[in-house]
């Protein structure tokens, strides 16, 4: 039975918006292979790069933050990004677990 955890990310997004911050919501929409977080997992990012929640348990969050800030700067409503398996080289953004994920970013305004 599905009994999803209630991580209160949307509630936090609302708090941020009420504090006049710009907020991008990032949601895992597809996964392939062994990805760390399930579809529907979320994180939020504001214009200064503060974030809460997670889409991959730490693997690609830094890239998601960069993309979200870019979305706010370009004033785009939404964007879809995909992350694939990382190679061995250090610091490269990717999923060490060998999975792939697609993340949907949308501005809330």
């Amino acid at each position: 039975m599905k009994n999803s955890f209630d991580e209160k990310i949307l509630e936090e997004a609302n708090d941020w918006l009420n504090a006049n911050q710009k907020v991008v919501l990032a949601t895992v929409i597809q996964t392939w292979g062994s990805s760390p977080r399930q579809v529907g997992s979320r994180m939020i990012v504001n214009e200064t790069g503060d974030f809460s929640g997670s889409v991959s348990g730490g693997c690609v969050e830094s890239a998601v933050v960069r993309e979200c800030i870019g979305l706010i700067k370009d004033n785009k409503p939404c964007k879809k990004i995909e992350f694939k398996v990382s190679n061995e080289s250090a610091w490269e953004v990717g999923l060490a677990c060998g999975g792939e994920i697609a993340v949907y970013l949308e501005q809330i305004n």
Partner: protein
Amino acid sequence: MKHSQLKEIIKKKASKIEFAIVTNLENGLSEIYEPGKSLSKEFEIHKEQIDNFFKLKKNGVIENTEIFIETYIRPIKVIIVGAVHIAQYLVDFAKSLNFEISIIDPRGYFASEQRFPDMKIINKWPDEAFKEIETNGNCALIALTHDPKIDDPALQHALNKKFYYIGALGSKKTHENRCQRLKEAGFNSDQINSINGPIGIKLGGRSAPEIALSIIAQLVSETYKK
């Protein structure tokens, strides 16, 4: 997504109703859908698939489209009998989990709003209290008073309604006596053995938060066995 829509989603989550967020990943349009209600033109053609996601209780992108569905299903009802010290920690742990909790305790001095802020508290004996809660096989019971006068009627109700999880606090000896009483009340051994007693997984701890953790771990584990 509009801020007003986000607020609407939060409101729906808080009122524990079932709904879905349907999003067109290409143009960013999204709307809230409640099963049985209508959808706008934008999403109408996908209604059948959206309902199917509900049936399967899953989230995802509809095949060969750019439509993403996120379903919110009604949380599992957990009924705690006994507004005791352990219950206070249970409520704390359960806050980050998707459970809808009610606390039953006829003893008003235990089940006070001050001890359980923002919780549904029913200050009645279990037989009366269960008239106020719709129960079925999707419910869980955590009996914590170890007082037969209060626990037993609740356990009998849970057994009759086939709750998927029933746990009762008390030592092995207390539990043996409890089983004997239920046998005399006409319950068969399969029913009686379905009760988790003594309650909780074996963590080894004896303090109230440790017992609460062992109970919540068992509850989550049983929820995923369903």
